[in-house]
């Protein structure tokens, strides 16, 4: 969407996608692709929990195929989506699908528990919110809100005066502009989370600088979809 409440021609004609449903198919591909990006490596094993409408009407919409396709790194217009389970097998990705009640969440919600080729693992909860748009709600039990339309930095740190400023100063020095920013904390002085969506992608050197800052526990850089 363009400015709030104002659509543009390509909101009405597009996206180009493999059917049948923008929310249950195109959105599901993007959720899988986003989970793969958050894992940050080739997934080899995973459990996929389907909630609500994803569980009830997912089969007829190819939601399961779409989620696998996304985990393999495909885009919503990739015509190999119907063959995704076969391709997953070829690439050594083992998945099990289960129906689950994920609580008071959007009807089109999925939870991934993924294991990567190099041993990394991550839990991701995301929802397909209509028209192919998605939002990642949870990473490793931390509440987040990531839509995948910007490069995103997820930083776990100590809640202390100046920590956020150090990070934003580094970004400013690297000429990286912040489009959206959200901060939250478990409690005062405890673990805190900052999510920065930026106009430019941060490079590895920049990431290393942030990781070396004091009171930073973990840094995750997620490219846009």
């Amino acid at each position: 969407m363009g400015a709030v409440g104002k659509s543009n021609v390509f909101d009405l004609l597009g996206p180009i996608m493999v059917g049948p449903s923008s929310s249950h198919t195109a959105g599901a591909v993007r959720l899988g692709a986003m989970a793969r990006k958050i894992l940050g490596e080739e997934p080899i094993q995973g459990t996929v929990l389907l909630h609500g409408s994803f569980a009830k009407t997912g089969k007829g919409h190819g939601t399961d195929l779409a989620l696998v396709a996304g985990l393999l790194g495909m885009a919503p217009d990739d015509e190999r989506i119907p063959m995704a389970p076969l391709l997953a097998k070829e690439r050594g990705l083992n998945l099990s699908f289960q129906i689950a009640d994920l609580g008071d969440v959007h009807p089109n919600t999925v939870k991934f528990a993924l294991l990567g080729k190099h041993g990394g693992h991550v839990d991701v909860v995301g929802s397909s919110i209509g028209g192919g748009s998605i939002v990642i709600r949870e990473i490793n039990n931390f509440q987040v809100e990531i839509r995948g339309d910007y490069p995103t930095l997820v930083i776990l740190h100590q809640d202390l005066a100046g920590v956020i400023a150090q990070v934003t100063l580094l970004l400013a020095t690297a000429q990286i502009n912040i489009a959206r920013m959200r901060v939250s904390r478990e409690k005062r002085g405890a673990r805190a989370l900052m999510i920065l969506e930026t106009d430019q992608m941060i490079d590895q050197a920049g990431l290393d600088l942030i990781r070396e800052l004091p009171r930073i526990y973990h840094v995750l850089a997620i490219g846009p979809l």
Partner: protein
Amino acid sequence: MRAYEDWVIEAETKGMKISEVILRNQMEELDQSEQVLFQRMHTNLVVMRESVEAGLSGNRRSLSGLVGEDAAKVEGRRKSGESLIGDRMSGAIAKALAVAEVNACMGKIVAAPTAGSCGVLPAVFFTVEDARQVSEHELLLALFTAAGIGMIIADRASVSGAEGGCQAEIGSAAAMAAAAAVELAGGSPRQTAHAAAIAMKSMLGLVCDPVGGLVEVPCVKRNATGATIALVAAEMALSGVRSAIPIDEVIDAMGAIGKQIPCALKETAQGGLAVTPTGRRIQVGFL
């Protein structure tokens, strides 16, 4: 709030096509050149054309097995010369079914405005192309006209079945296609507004009650009827028939009706065809 009437007046005052007014508006709002916008629209047109061809030539079934192979039946009858309603209309029906079937069978389509209503625009565009030998440039321009109607609908009402029922999806697609067909056939900007209004009025109140919650029954066939309504509305407008209620007010009425339609009839599969004995049987049998 944006109004289609404003664009009609601007087009009339400046002696431009309605599509040219919408194109200028979008160059400004998206801050992109005419060339870039045309290129992006061209990508849509190419996929639309491919989806028609794929649907007419293939024999596929959807995941549920409920839909598929109907486009070929209609196209076959058209080619045999026995069509009851004529070559052009049966061609439009076949094309709309073709694209909607491709969508239901996990093929590639352009959401126009949604995936569930993706067959209407390609059917109408390529039917008019066959009838009038219009150039690709004119087709691309007319896509801006279609999108322009859609933008007004999205801003003033909705193009989502979950929010407004089927009238918001196939109804919107029919209104968009009707306006574009008028422009392609040489009608005036004012006539595009009348065509869109007539098409939308014919779809008011249509609920979204898909069997099993799938984009199959009745969605695929409604793409075909939606395309024919668009062509009928365009024919009336090109003949000088006027809509008594202006397009912007028809759109507002559609939005209001959408709010009044109960939730059971807005893409939840809890009413209408979805809960008929047969609808329930299909759902249980498949899911």
